[in-house]
C-alpha cells in the first residue's frame, strides 16, 4: 500500500511570526546549505527580517550572497525583493573568531591574552573536530540575543556543520557542559588550587598515567589552559544550557534535509527520532534532488525487451538507446519512491516536501527563488 506523508507547508512555517529560528540539519551532500539559503530568501521576500547563518557555502553562491568574506558579521544580501517589507542578511561562520570573541567577552584582557596564546587553546579553537558544532550553537545564541535586544531580525535560519554524524551538532552544547562539570577538569585544576584535597590513590594513578602517555609538557599546557579557563567555565556552561533550551523552545523549528538515498534517509530517520526524544520542535522533512518522473508509463521491463530486440538487428540503434534511457529513469524513480515510502511508513507523522533535482547547481538568488518555489508548491510534485 502506498504511504503518503502529510505535506510540509513551507509558507505557513515562514509566515508564522512565532517562528524565530529554523535549523536545517541532515547528512552531508544533501543540499542543506542551499535549502537554508532558499528558505531564508523566501522568508525575507515574504516580509520577514531574516539572517541566515551558513557554515560552508559553495563559493559562487557565497559570492552572489555577498558573504565570500569570512568576517563573522551579518551582511545585507544585495538584490533581495523588499516589497513585502522584509530583509535578508547573511553570514558565514568563522569558528576561531567566534571562540576568541567569547573568551574576550568573558575574561579580563590580561587573562584573555593568556588563553588566546596557549598552544592547547590555539589547537582547540582552530583545527580540531567538534569545535565547529560548539561555535555554530554559540553564534546562534548570540544572534538570537542580539535580535531580541535590537529587533534587527525576527527570523534566524541556521545551516548545521557537516558533522561526522548529524547528531554531533545536537550534542555539542550538552557535551560541552557535561565536560565542564566533569571530574577530569577538577583533576586538571587540582594543582592550581593548591592543597591536594583530591590526592587520593586513584588520582595519582591517573596523573601518572597521563604524564606517561602525553608527556609532562602537554599535561602542563593543558593545566595552564584549564586553570586560565576556570573563571570562564561558569559563563560557558550557562551559555550552553541556554542554547539547548533555545533549541527546545516553541519558536524553533527543525527542518530535516535529505536526498532520496538510503544513507541520507537513514540519517534523517535518526534525526527525526532524536528530535522527538529530546522534545525538539520538528517542522518536517525536505527531500532534495528528487529525480524527475518518467514522461510515459511504458514499464522498464517492456523498454529493455524492446531495446534488446532492436539491438539484435542494429547494435547502434538510436531507438534502443532511447528505450534504455527510459528504463534507467523508471528504475531510479521507482527506487527513490520506494525509499521515501519506507521512510513515511516508519515515520507517518512527519510532514514532507519534495524538491525536484535541478540540472545545474544553484549560484544566485534566482536559483534560490526557484528552489523556494519548489519547496512551497507541492501540488505538481510526484508524491
Amino acid at each position, binding site marked *: 500500500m502506498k504511504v503518503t506523508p502529510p505535506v510540509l507547508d513551507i509558507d505557513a512555517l515562514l509566515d508564522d511570526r512565532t517562528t524565530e529560528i529554523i535549523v536545517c540539519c541532515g547528512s*552531508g551532500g544533501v543540499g542543506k546549505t542551499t535549502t537554508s539559503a532558499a528558505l531564508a530568501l523566501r522568508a525575507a521576500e515574504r516580509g520577514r527580517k531574516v539572517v541566515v547563518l551558513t557554515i560552508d557555502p559553495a563559493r559562487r553562491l557565497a559570492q552572489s550572497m555577498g558573504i565570500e568574506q569570512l568576517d563573522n558579521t551579518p551582511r545585507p544580501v544585495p538584490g533581495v525583493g523588499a516589497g513585502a517589507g522584509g530583509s535578508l542578511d547573511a553570514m558565514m561562520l568563522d569558528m576561531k573568531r567566534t571562540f576568541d570573541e567569547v573568551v574576550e567577552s568573558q575574561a579580563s584582557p590580561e587573562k584573555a591574552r593568556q588563553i588566546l596564546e596557549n598552544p592547547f587553546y590555539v589547537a582547540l579553537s582552530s583545527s*580540531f573536530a567538534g569545535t565547529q558544532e560548539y561555535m555554530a550553537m554559540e553564534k546562534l545564541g548570540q544572534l538570537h540575543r542580539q535580535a531580541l535586544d535590537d529587533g534587527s531580525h525576527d527570523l534566524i535560519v541556521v545551516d548545521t556543520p557537516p558533522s561526522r554524524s548529524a547528531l554531533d551538532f545536537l550534542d555539542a552544547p550538552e557535551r560541552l557542559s557535561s565536560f565542564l562539570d566533569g571530574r577530569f577538569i577538577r583533576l586538571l585544576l587540582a594543582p592550581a588550587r593548591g592543597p591536594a584535597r583530591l590526592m587520593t590513590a586513584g588520582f595519582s594513578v*591517573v596523573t601518572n598515567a597521563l604524564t606517561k602517555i602525553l608527556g609532562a609538557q602537554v599535561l602542563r599546557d593543558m593545566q595552564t589552559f584549564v586553570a586560565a579557563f576556570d573563571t570562564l567555565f561558569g559563563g560557558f556552561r550557562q551559555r550552553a544550557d541556554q542554547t539547548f533550551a533555545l533549541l527546545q523552545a516553541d519558536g524553533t523549528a527543525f527542518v530535516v534535509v535529505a536526498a532520496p538515498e538510503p544513507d541520507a534517509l537513514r540519517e534523517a530517520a535518526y534525526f527525526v527520532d532524536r528530535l522527538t526524544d529530546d522534545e525538539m520542535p520538528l517542522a518536517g522533512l525536505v527531500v532534495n534532488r528528487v529525480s524527475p518522473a518518467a514522461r510515459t508509463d511504458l514499464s522498464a521491463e517492456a523498454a529493455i525487451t524492446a531495446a534488446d530486440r532492436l539491438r539484435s538487428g542494429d547494435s547502434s540503434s538510436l531507438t534502443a538507446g532511447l528505450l534504455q534511457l527510459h528504463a534507467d529513469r523508471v528504475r531510479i524513480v521507482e527506487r527513490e519512491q520506494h525509499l521515501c515510502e519506507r521512510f513515511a511508513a516508519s515515520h507517518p507523522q512527519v510532514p514532507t516536501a519534495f524538491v525536484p533535482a535541478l540540472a545545474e547547481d544553484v549560484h544566485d538568488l534566482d536559483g534560490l527563488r526557484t528552489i523556494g518555489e519548489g519547496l512551497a508548491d507541492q501540488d505538481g510534485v510526484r508524491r
Partner: protein
Amino acid sequence: MTAPADRPVDWPKVRLHVVTGKGGTGKSTVAAALALALAGSGRNVLLCEVEGRQGIARMFDVDPLPYEERRITKGAPDEDGRAGQVHALHIDAESALLEYLSMYYKLGRAGKALDRFGVIDFATTIAPGVRDVLLTGKVYEAVQRPRGNRNREQVTYDAVVLDAPPTGRICQFLGVNSELAGLAKVGPIKSQADKVMELLRSPRTAVHLVTILEEMPVQETSDGIAELRAAGLPVGGIVVNLVRPQALSTGALAQVRNDAVDPTAITSDLARARVDVDAALVESLVAEARDHAVRRHLEDEQRALVAAEGLPTYELPRIAGGIDHGALVELAQLLRTQGMA
C-alpha cells in the same frame, strides 16, 4: 568482465588506500569496491571504517561489526574464478584507546581509574584531535603489522582500504597527528604520532578522491587535492562515481540536442520491436532523451575539469537498482579493468 592476471596496476607500492569524497558521492561504496578489487587471488585486504556508521555491515549484509577484524567476503573473482579475502574492521575511538593503552603502557589498574575519572570519555569525545589520532593509529597498526607474523591469530594484509571522513575534513583527520606532534614536543605520544605521519606521508599511502560530475563536488575535489598537496599527503587517483548511462553515442546526443531526431524512424523502430506505439510515446521518449542530453553535456564540462587535474581517473556507473553485493563486485571488476587495482 575480468582483467588479465598479469596486467599492470597504477598503485603497486601502495599499502594504505585512503578513500575520501564529498558527502553524497558514494565514497563508502567506492571504498568497498576497491577492497574487493584489491583482493585478488591469494591476497588479504582489510576494509576499515571510522565514522561509526556500520556502512560496511549494511553493504555486505552482515551483522554489525565489532571492534575486531572479521572476514566478511571473498574478493572479486579473477579470470580463473579465484579470489582473495576481504576482512573488515569498524574502528571506534573508545576501544582503540583502551587497546592502545594496554598495548603500550600496561596500565592495569590505572586504565580503570582513567575510565572512572572520565578521562576515556574526555579523550575520545572532547580532547582536541585525540579521537582522530586513535583512529589513524589503529589503521597504522594494521598496515605496519609484520607479514609472516608468528602470531597465527593475526591476519596480515597486502592492502588496507580506509573509508575516511569526507573531503572537507580529510586533511584535518590525516594531519591531526602532526598537530598533536606539534603540541606534544616530547614523550611517547609524540613518537607514536610521528610514526603515523611518516606512513601517511610516504609513497605507501595514496589518498583517492571520489566525486560525481557536478559542479560542487568537482570543485571540492580540486580544493581537496590542493590541500592534500599543501599538507604533504600523497594524492592518489580520482574516482568519478554515479556516471549516467552512456546509452547514446556522441552523434546521437547531438541529434537529440538539436531536435534533429526523426520521429517516423523511431515510430517504425518501436513498432518493429512490438511496442504499442503512438505519437505521445515517441514524443515522451525523445523528451526524456533531451533531459538526459542536457545533463550529459553538463557532465562533460565537469569531466574536462576532472581531467585537468592530471591524475589517474576511474569512472563507475550509476546503478539504477542501488548497491548490493553483486553491484559491488561489478564495480570492483570495473576498477580492475581500469587499472586501479
